[in-house]
């Protein structure tokens, strides 16, 4: 039987021996459009790879049955990854047995891919394609996005802290009639004296002012003098 992964076999024009390039069909199940797009671009540079995507809302198992990929790359954040897990033992329901890719000789590589958040399955029936470089490229892309996201979170955190410091300064300027540089110096001195960070001291001021404002409002409502 001629296997499906060979149906798109190409001839390499430059190759003096003229050996066929086997087309590997990769189903990329990743809902992060930017990451999936970037990874598709990287993988598409290899003419022997065809990248397929599931339809939105499509069950992963249905996408595998409909598209007959050779390799499935899955974002580990997807809960439906379980649909491919251990499917090998129930081959009657699958287009072909599906096996989680494992490099037994390189557990460090496996750990790296998993902590980057991507896993790979082979749909068998043919000699499996060389998955390691594909998974390596995917892991690198996932890692890159992970770092970018964590940098974004850090930047957002710094922005929030600056906001808190500004609010604390405004409170000091208003309540203690300080000039702006004095308000900042006051925060810095207090932080150094108590061994804390300036944003933490600022947060304390903002929280105290919030609570105090409510308190005095409550006192007014209850008719306190």
């Amino acid at each position, binding site marked *: 039987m001629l296997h499906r992964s060979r149906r798109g076999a190409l001839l390499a024009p430059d190759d003096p021996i003229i050996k066929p390039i086997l087309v590997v069909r990769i189903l990329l199940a990743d809902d992060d459009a930017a990451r999936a797009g970037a990874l598709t671009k990287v993988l598409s540079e290899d003419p022997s790879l065809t990248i397929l995507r599931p339809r939105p809302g499509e*069950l992963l198992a249905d996408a595998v049955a409909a598209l007959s990929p050779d390799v499935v790359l899955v974002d580990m*954040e997807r809960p439906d*990854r379980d649909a491919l*897990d251990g499917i090998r033992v129930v081959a009657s329901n699958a287009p072909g047995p599906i096996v989680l890719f494992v490099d037994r000789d390189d*557990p460090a590589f496996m750990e790296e891919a998993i902590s980057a958040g991507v896993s790979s399955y082979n749909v068998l029936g043919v000699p499996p394609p060389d998955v390691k470089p594909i998974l390596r490229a995917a892991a690198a892309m996932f890692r890159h996005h992970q770092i970018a996201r964590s940098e974004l979170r850090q930047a957002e955190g710094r922005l929030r802290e600056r906001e808190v410091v500004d609010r604390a300064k405004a409170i000091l300027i208003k309540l203690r009639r300080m000039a702006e540089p004095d308000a900042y110096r006051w925060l810095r001195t207090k932080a150094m004296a108590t061994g804390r960070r300036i944003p933490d001291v600022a947060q304390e001021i903002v929280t105290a002012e919030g609570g105090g404002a409510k308190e005095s409002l409550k006192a007014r409502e209850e008719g306190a003098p």
Partner: protein
Amino acid sequence: MSTRVRIGMLRLTDSAPVVVAQARNLFHALDLLPTLSIEPSWANIADKLTYGLLDAAVMLPPLTLASTLGLRGQAVKLIVPMGLSQGGNTIVLGGDAIKESAGLPPGARLLAWLAGQTGRPRIAVVHRFSTHNLLLRYWLSLTGVDPDRDIETVVVPPEQVVPALASGQIAGFCAGAPWGVTAELAGAGSVLLGTSDIWPFHPEKCLAVRQDWATENPEALTRLLRALMRAQAICDQPDAADSVVATLSDVEGLALPPEAVRSALPGGSSHEQIHFHGAGAAFPAPPHAIWFLRQMRRWGWLAEETNIAATARAVYRPDLFSLAARMEDLFIPPGSARNIAIPEELGTGPTTEFGAFDF
């Protein structure tokens, strides 16, 4: 110095012992410094245990055994030093036909429903190697239905089973709480029976621990088990339900829907309930492992050379349970010794020890 331990779990009601232990400082009280990791899939839990990114997890017993045997990837040595919960899953069928047979025995209802289906109806379970799948297949066979020929089994994440049923992507499912009740409320299907109707007090989730972590941290393991035993006792008290629901629905944590969670907890309104406490729930009985493994063999999922009794004995560790249970003054069932003889030839059904049921 406190011992660090990384514990994985899914967003499920029966992850309660771990999150309750954390919320009530029960880990801290026993010098443990846990990092709880909420994972989106069972495959993630299994992979992270395999490659040492987690030390322990709230796990499905059959998946724990399958991971140990290398049935889903790289084989990894895991142990089950305690059970975490019993029961809690429901079998739900969609459509109007099933509503009309209310009052008939579940087996008769199933056969009538099947007769009205075109082709092989798709029934969703949460994982191939789940308690749900094995109990469903066991019950289907009892009823005279071949789970490989008469239906198609698909795997759908629990949170997606109700929309999948409503949209017709699946015809029915077997999933944990609260999704059965949720499907009925949404008018998408009817609960046919609970898995506790098939096997009363069946083991549901267990604690799976990497064997190398357990070997390197024997005392911390005992403390981990003790903290979880204390949490299990809290989870099983109807009086504590308000507080347990609050912990499980904390938006910073599992963020589960509060009313649906409550219905499956002890004292709740659901027909199918989860039990957490007592020797029955916490004791990692090797015959339970044997039952799961025998079912897996029955369906042709095990390699011929797999020795069921030896696997059960290596993975299920009542000796480690007993060590911790003794310190907590809990009842320790007989048969807790490591070298207990386990008969390989238990029946294919739940043994009389658990009660045999006919439909």
